[in-house]
């Protein structure tokens, strides 16, 4: 039977995969960043299901997600008309560049990089969401903020997510963030 940690990553993987599949052609930067999160979360499902072989890849793709997918997501949301947000090849190249820089910095010993970059990215997303004045966007961005807070503190605030561990809480909050993000984009296009 699937354990609670694996389940939380499975939810995140499913939400991100759906977002990636939905916007693969129309919003490539958003889709690619969601895709990276989906891959990381998928390896997480395996890792938390005690499949040891998935530990390294999960840690690797988590690093890629933190140092490259978060900034790409921020670009996709803050500058939706930019070449990077609109063209699949441009988005992939930005992802490549961010991966290269992120991994090089991480391996050089500056581990804080993988925390700073998501924080900056999410703050940019909050600003973009507040400008859009869309409730779903704002909630989505706030879920990301909460997810990062939980990850940084290493524990979930009991009054909000009592039964969950920090890992599970982070996964669920991220999934909620992606979900709200998808919802806001869907409602924008349907109007």
């Amino acid at each position, binding site marked *: 039977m699937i354990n609670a940690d694996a389940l939380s990553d499975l939810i995140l993987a499913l939400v991100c995969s759906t977002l990636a599949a939905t916007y693969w052609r129309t919003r490539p930067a958003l889709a690619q960043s969601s895709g990276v999160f989906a891959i990381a979360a998928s390896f997480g499902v395996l890792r938390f299901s005690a499949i040891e072989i998935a530990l*390294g*890849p999960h840690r690797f793709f988590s690093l890629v997600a933190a140092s490259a997918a978060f900034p790409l997501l921020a670009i996709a949301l803050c500058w939706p008309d930019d070449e990077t947000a609109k063209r699949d090849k441009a988005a992939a190249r930005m992802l490549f*560049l961010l991966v290269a820089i992120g991994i090089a910095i991480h*391996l050089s010993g500056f581990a804080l990089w993988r925390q700073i970059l998501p924080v900056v990215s999410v703050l940019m997303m909050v600003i973009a969401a507040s400008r859009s004045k869309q409730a779903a966007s704002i909630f989505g961005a706030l879920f990301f903020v909460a997810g990062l807070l939980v990850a940084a503190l290493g524990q979930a605030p009991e009054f909000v997510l009592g039964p969950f561990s920090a890992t599970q809480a982070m996964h669920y909050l991220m999934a909620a963030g992606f979900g709200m993000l998808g919802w806001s984009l869907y409602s924008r296009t349907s109007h």
Partner: protein
Amino acid sequence: MLTVLIEAGLARRRGLAVYDIPDALTSLHHGVISEVTGVLWKLAGLGTYALVYANFHATELPADSWLIFVFALLAYDFCYYWQHRMGHEMNVLWAAHVVHHSSEYYNLATALRQTSTGRFFGWVFYLPMAVIGVPPTLFFTVAVIDLLYQYWVHTELIGRLGWLDRVFVTPSNHRVHHGQNDYCIDKNYGGILILWDRLFGTFADEREGEKIIYGIRKPLQSFNPVWGNLHYYNDLWRESVQAVGWRAKLGVWLAPPGGWTDAPLAHFDTATFVNYDCKTSSAMRWYAAIQYTLVVPCVVQILAMDVKAAPLLAVLYVLLIIATTVCVGLLLEGRQIAQRFEMLRLLLIGIAFVTMPDWFGFDASVILRVALAMFSLASLVWLAQQRIERSPVGAGNTL
């Protein structure tokens, strides 16, 4: 080096203009710089692959298994295809790889015309292998095999090879890769297998009756290997300075050469192309060749050095070798300033070799010291008597 000489001899016997001495020496100088700058990377300790493997590998694949070896070679070749393809399709990567394409001749020396800046981003493409669990020793083995394989395909002396041209990278399909002709652009990226190109739609067969013109659409027009390495970065820098806004500035580096456009590539007229030629005198060509011959043992020495034991000395040695290739390159171009720099270089090296207790760790015998001092002096006297003139012809497409 021997294979280059054999190829040049065979080409001469067949009456083929496959080699131009200044161009070939420039290719060799690029190779020298590429090797010695690798020493600086060693100093920086950027063994990224090994680090990623150590931190993130899924499993430890056995390095002594034939099956794993074949898998690693195929995986490397696949990753190489994408590295090479992106090297042509993304400005910041093309800035590094353009070096290899800047020769207007296609021969074994061109194979040695390698970039010195490719190490900045090239490693990223191979990280999946590290994460899968290909051990660094096996990775480096297959990397060397892939690299060595690509040497022999840089020749005009071998024609079509039948079915091999459809499966493997061969001289025929790699000639297409180095061509400027319209049908050659962005084609045949494979390292060992051309099957990747057939799979991803980038394969083009060599055309009978259409002469391939080698080189790049914006010709380098220089024998200076440092400029050869930096000229496209310079172009991108200027372009990004002119771009408005930080996103546009950054976008310049990520865009394909020619920018984000869906317009077809400008037509290239092969009939009007003239190769770059500085009309370098025969004596100067010999001089440059001899200087190159003397640089080779220095390169071998620096590659064998324990650079981490004496990093400053290693950096100094690298700079000295680079300065030599630049001076000789500029002499081949007929630049007058090069004459003064080269004379100064000869003087300094002559004095240093005789007076230093050892030559960067090499304890030279008295006979060798005297011989090199004499050689430096003779070169200096000869050079002082030369009248250096710059009269380049050929600047790519004459129209």
